[in-house]
């Protein structure tokens, strides 16, 4: 198996991990709505995952850039910019005092990311298979 194959195998695994991360976020948000968890604990818990999630995503994107996978890189670029902008404005962490007012927005964003990771999961899978076939020919 060559470079591209390995790369996309890794990307598939990462996408799966991020996917689970987003599912976890959504579950936590609905817990908050049902009053199973208080906002302080929620924010403490989720804030641990925010930066790792962003870094993991940035890492794959940069891997695509280095290995010259332009299509995949461009696919990830908007989200990377979005995350970077949030970190730059120091708005990436969940704020327990504002969480109920911003909950709708957070949920929307998380759902969007969930969808994005799902699509990229299958996209990477497809790319991996394509790469493997290309190699074996």
């Amino acid at each position: 198996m060559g470079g591209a194959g390995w790369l996309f195998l890794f990307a598939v695994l990462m996408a799966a991990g991020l996917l689970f991360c987003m599912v976890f976020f959504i579950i936590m948000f609905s817990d908050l709505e049902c009053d199973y968890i208080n906002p302080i604990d929620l924010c403490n818990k989720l804030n641990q995952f925010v930066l790792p999630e962003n870094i993991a995503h940035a890492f794959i994107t940069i891997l695509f850039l280095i290995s010259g996978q332009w299509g995949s890189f461009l696919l990830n670029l908007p989200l990377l910019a979005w995350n970077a902008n949030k970190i730059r404005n120091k708005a990436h962490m969940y704020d327990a005092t504002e969480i109920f007012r911003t909950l709708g927005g957070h949920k929307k964003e998380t759902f969007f990311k969930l969808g994005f990771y799902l699509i990229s999961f299958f996209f990477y899978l497809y790319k991996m298979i394509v790469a493997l076939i290309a190699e074996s020919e």
Partner: protein
Amino acid sequence: MASPAEQLPPGWAAEWDATHQRYLFIETTTGHTQWEPPAAGSAETENAPPAGVTPAGGHGKRRQYAAGQTQAYYGGEAAPDPAYGQASAGLGVQQQGGQLFTPGLAAEGQFANQQQIAQQGGGTQGGYYGQGEPEYLNQQPQQYGQPPVDALANQFGQMGVGGQKQFSLYTTNLLTLPPDPRDLAQPPPEIRLPPNACISPSPTANADPSYFRSTLNAIPTTSSLLSKSKMPLALVITPYRSLNEGEEPVPLVTDTVIARCRRCRSYINPYVQFIDGGSRWRCCLCSMTNEVPQLFDWDQVRNQPGDRWQRLEMNHSCVEYVAPTEYMVRPPQPAVYIFLIDVSHAAVQSGMVATATRTILENLERIPDEGERTKISIICYDTSLYFFSMPPGSTDSSMLVVSDIDDVFLPKPTDLLVNLAEARGALEVLLGRIGEMFQENTIIGSALGPALQAGFKLMTPIGGKIIVLSSSLPSHGAGALKNREDNKLLGTAKESGLLQAASPFYKTFAIECSRTQVSVDMFLFSSAYQDVATLACLPHYTSGQTYYYPAFNAARSEDALKFAHEFGEVIAQPIMLEAVIRVRASRGLRMASFHGNFFVRSTDLLAMPAVPQDQSYAIEVQIEEAITIPFVVFQTAVLHTTCYGERRIRVITAALPTTSNLSELYSSADQIAITTFFANKAVERSLTHKLEDSRDFILQKLVDIISAYKASMTSSGAGASAQLAISENMKMLPVLILGLLKNVGIRQSAQIPPDIRAYSQALLTTLPSQLLIPYIYPTFYSLHNMPPEAGTIGEHGVILPPPLPLTSERLERHGLFLIEDGQTIFLWVGRDAVPQLIQDVFELPSYDALRGGKATLNLLENQFSQRINAIVQKIREMRRGVYYPHLYIVKEDGEPPLRLWALSMLIQDRADVLPSYQQFLSSLKDKVNGASGGY
């Protein structure tokens, strides 16, 4: 009613007399003339001049104004006319009239007629200003004309919309009707519940407006109806308001029989239904059937069967229960107060330390401490922390200095937080000494963050109140802040950044505080930038309050007096500890968002470590599903520990009828509550978006309301119209919104320092309506020509002069005027004031000898001075809250900043880029008519 001529009995003629500005009535046969309308004539003809003529002489007794363009505009204000006929009890109950506005009612004459009626609705008293002091405006007309009902009665019948519940909708044209400050004192629209909704005949069965107000006193049945009307649906609650003298305390249910619904957990109230012979009750919120508790009909005090209809919770909308142990997570805590006193150079120099310690000393007696359980501690700080150890029983105290502020620790495990009663002696000695102890302190800098952490550590196991006194920007240790004031940013889009918290410390610390039941009050004194916006976060999320005394200097006795009064009141206030508030509502309604000082702990639970008195909270309500019941119930429950160590639940129940009728919706709108809600909304928006967005948002809301009203309630529909119509009960809304747009908190200006703005925003979000409305729409009195009875003691205390509309047209060069907004009082002296007036009021020979600025009025040996002092005193006392307004003397040709500040209170005037009321209205009209026109 274009002319009264048609209304006269046969043989009479009316002629307009331009010199006397009233009608002259002539008996044509005899030639006899008289000013009074002939007996059979309609009473209010006198007040209805032909269009274009000013009835300024109608109140010739009071004042004579120069005629002029604006005068013509304000002329319609002529309200207290003694010639009015029989009294009628205000708008809400004019049922016999039934002047429903119909979309077909477009004829000018009829429109004018309606306005006529509208003006007469001038107002029953009380309501908004609370029961104890209904006499906010003593000059209200006592007599009103009997509306000319007959003419419109037929129309009412034809429409077939009769029925006793029906609200009557009166439309007014804003363009011809100037705002009358007296309208603000009117009670909110009456709540008309269906018959038999309430099982108690008690008048207190529905919540008083001082506790609970709704923007709509008739709840729309569907959300589409609400969105069609464009009206906001929100509640303004003040669950813990102070009681005035003579008011009944909140009734207390002591037998711990607490009947609650099994499903929605609401408390039993006067709106439930007893079924199955009284053995069960049906919840009015969720229709669940519940068992009546066995002891409900048992009088435990006398040990005999009791009468459930006599129970307090069945007769009062606002009750308190003594809570049994199920409602406690721990035994009731004692009240704990920790004072953090800044003793850095600046604080000592300004005299703050001396004033504060003296005030604490003087108020030790007043600190709530009934069971002798209250604990107290004093920590001083500059760049180090100074603890005071006070062993019980001795009068000695020893100071312990901690200069390691990176990792705060308590120098001693005991005797730092002492029992107030036991350590009284030591405290008194200590408080007397702190001032001189730090007199020579030259350390500059403030370790506020570490001091907060120390106070927090000290009270963690119990919780309570930390009272911070700070004179400078925190500069050392955790929570240090940078001076980010940048005058170049003011007035730009980036300005809202200065209103947001600069450091996350104050938010995370606030969350920790909220968890451990610690509340923080901030008293800020700096003359330089202090970042009020960031520091105010702490009170905001821990249900405290921020008090700001810019450039405090105790050498000025006015400053010292104001601070000492407010600080003393805050210390002496009985507070609620460890409180949570939950608002429940009938099915289909959901509390969507919350505004005020608290931490939202779950979707509908507000956590408040300590509830101060007279703070108001605004809650936006969403209609989730169509409401099918005839009335809905809102129930606010506050579970708290009193500062006397008793766990209690305060329950405030309010029932409001539902409606599917748009006109009823409009006629039940409460302009005061709407403004209060919009003030909260505007501040929220200025933080999340930009200041400009928040102004646009509020303005757009107003335009939407008026457009929707025009489209659905007037004949012109969606087309252009020469009128700007709104319902009678909302006619003050545009001027209130204008006041809000011109308030320091969100005004468009590049001159307002961010500290002042942030403080004003803190006030806008916490003040109860009673204080907020004057803060938005100040009160304006003319003193030099006030009626003879003003300033004397009347039936309800000191009589105030009649309020004037807020426009400088009313300022006269020889006059003495008073403008107040509840936070400051301005005494405006005209430049041609006669020496006698200056001599009488200020004890000075002439106007030139008078100096502007903060002042104290001396009580002099003449009647005029005594009356003015009485009025100032009354203004300082008549509202709830701890605020003690400063008195400024403003000379007409005095220092420009002070003069402009005073003039900025006259919100109906044009100032800078801000429009005058007429300009505002015409821009509103353009927007409503869809034309392109801006302001």
